[in-house]
């Protein structure tokens, strides 16, 4: 790629981060099913070209063995390497939770700091593309509930690049969630070296009436709703968490302290989701100044249905987001 790119896709953003990280640090390596070029550079093409550049030893295609993939990554990580493991779909994390939760997340603590696990796990997921019940779940709340894990997701290609690079350089195990409905989405290309710090949320739109806290794909939906509501005279501040856990409470609370109203939006099922934690924190810290209870929008309480109209109805919608915002305005 010599000529400067006008836009890049989400997948390209991922690819750039991996490329830069591997170029900069020989301890970085990639493993996962079909990730090498001989196997097509990953089913989502995120690793395309990397094995050609860095060798199939550092961009390793694996058997279909997710426990062995994460286990190998954990073992290498405690010797100081920085593996990036691709687990194709988030639902497949269910076959390797032990390695993530009992090992990656805990080894630093259980070893009293003698070892650490600078591991990044990338996975795709998300409803709306017709994969049905076993390939679409948003399970970020599980990992957020596990001390020792960081959870990150991006809402645009540049952030994907910048956040993934930070995740790889970070010394803690990080789950990096990619929305499969966004892989082809285009966005402005970042500069070489562009990084987005972990643990910091971004105010993506300033506003004064109500704060909407969200992350990942819904950021675009929320922004669209905010634009519509602006036409009605409602000024919505939109925060993209970027790092879901531990989340940037400071930015969130500062914003809500200003607007006195808040709504949390995510694609995951609403019940017992990330929104509950964010909502609780806001209530706990800003109770006396809140003008209305914090609203929550998430997807419906069911497995992700296959049938296209059901799948759409299952997802959070712009109408629901707008309604939740309006509700806080009384």
């Amino acid at each position: 790629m010599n000529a400067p790119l006008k836009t890049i896709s989400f997948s390209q953003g991922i690819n750039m981060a991996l490329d830069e990280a591997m170029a900069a640090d020989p301890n970085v390596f990639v493993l996962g099913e079909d990730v090498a070029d001989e196997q097509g550079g990953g089913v989502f093409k995120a690793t395309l070209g990397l094995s050609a550049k860095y060798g199939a030893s550092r961009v390793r295609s694996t058997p279909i063995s997710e426990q062995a993939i994460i286990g190998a990554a954990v073992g290498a990580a405690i010797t100081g390497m920085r593996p990036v493991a691709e687990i194709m779909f988030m639902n497949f994390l269910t076959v390797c939770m032990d390695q993530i939760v009992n090992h990656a997340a805990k080894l630093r603590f259980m070893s009293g700091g003698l070892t650490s696990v600078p591991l990044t796990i990338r996975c795709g997921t998300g409803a709306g593309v017709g994969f049905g019940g076993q390939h679409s779940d948003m399970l970020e709340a599980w990992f957020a509930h596990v001390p020792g894990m960081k959870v990150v997701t991006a809402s645009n290609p540049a952030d994907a690049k910048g956040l993934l690079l930070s995740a790889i350089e970070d010394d803690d195990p990080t789950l990096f969630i990619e929305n499969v409905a966004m892989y082809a989405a285009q966005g402005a290309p970042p500069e070489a070296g562009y990084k987005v710090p972990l643990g910091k949320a971004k105010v993506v739109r300033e506003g004064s009436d109500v704060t909407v806290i969200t992350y990942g794909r819904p950021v675009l939906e929320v922004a669209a709703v905010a634009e519509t509501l602006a036409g009605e005279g409602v000024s919505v501040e939109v925060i993209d968490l970027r790092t879901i856990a531990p989340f940037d409470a400071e930015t969130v609370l500062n914003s809500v302290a200003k607007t006195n109203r808040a709504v949390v939006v995510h694609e995951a099922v609403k019940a017992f989701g990330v929104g509950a934690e964010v909502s609780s924190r806001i209530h706990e810290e800003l109770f006396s100044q809140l003008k209305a209870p914090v609203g929550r929008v998430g997807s419906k309480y069911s497995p992700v249905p296959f049938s296209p109209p059901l799948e759409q109805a299952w997802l959070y919608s712009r109408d629901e987001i707008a309604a939740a915002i309006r509700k806080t305005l009384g």
Partner: protein
Amino acid sequence: MGLAKAASDAADVDTDTLLEIYRRTALINRTDEKFRALLMSGTLRLVYYPVRGQEVVSAAMMTALRPDDYLVTTYRGVHDQLAKGIPPKILWAEFTGKATGACKGKGGPMHITHPETGVMVTTGIVGSGLPIANGLGLSSLLKGDGRVTVVCFGDGSTNIGAFHEAMNMASIWKLPVVFLCQNNRYGEHTAFADSTSAGRIVDRAPGYGMNAVRVDGNDASEMYAAAKAAVDRARAGGGPTLIEAMTYRMLGHVFGSNASYVPKALQEEAVREDPVPRLRQKLLDLQVPEATLAGIEQAIDGVIAEAVEFALSSPYPDIGEIRKDVLGQEIAA
């Protein structure tokens, strides 16, 4: 623990049985073709895993079963489901997400269930069908209902933990389960030998003390003989069998993906050994009249056309279905 070649019994397969296998083979083959045609034309949009090349494996396997025997299969399961007897109409309607589908459109292509014909679970998670098949077998053992369970999975699935745990458990509990590995040479884009430390899947069977056989799955007689032996054994209380059916995935992993990673020679050889014309020719050689075969094919085309029409004209499910079947009790709106 025999890795004996089943081919010796192959001669025993009578023409009627082969004709039944051909009926199922043709239904699979033409259904698959129709799916791809409608996807190509844009009439359908869905994630579709072609079964081209693997028709005979499941046609022969399921012909060896009783209608009330159980089947567990995967995302690449159209051949297994049809061979087991699922009515094409409700299969098509499910693939298109319609209310008239097998599962009211809620499961979709990767999650076909139809207990009436024994299609119990279709999973999209590699390897996960095997432990569930053990559960079906255990149920039959505890109830003494004499059913046999067949579970289908690919070569790539033999490297995941669930495979191992299920093989061991089935063996020590002598479960009436037939483990049908459809070795189509690839798991997604990865060639068998690049991911699997065993030269042959059956080489893993002795480590489980399990009866096993490797057959040319594309040879209807050989495949049927192995299937029949395994099913009979299971039904008689002889425990599980691993069948490694050698076959070939003639198209890419998923509709629309290319398969440039496949060596040309392998692809060409597969085309030459295409199981469908092979079985057809065999029947002709056995003096089955061309008109009989053509008649079968024509009838099938009619059934498929009807099924497609049924699916396309069926309504989508009611939005309220989101709240149903989550728990036993409907979720409040």
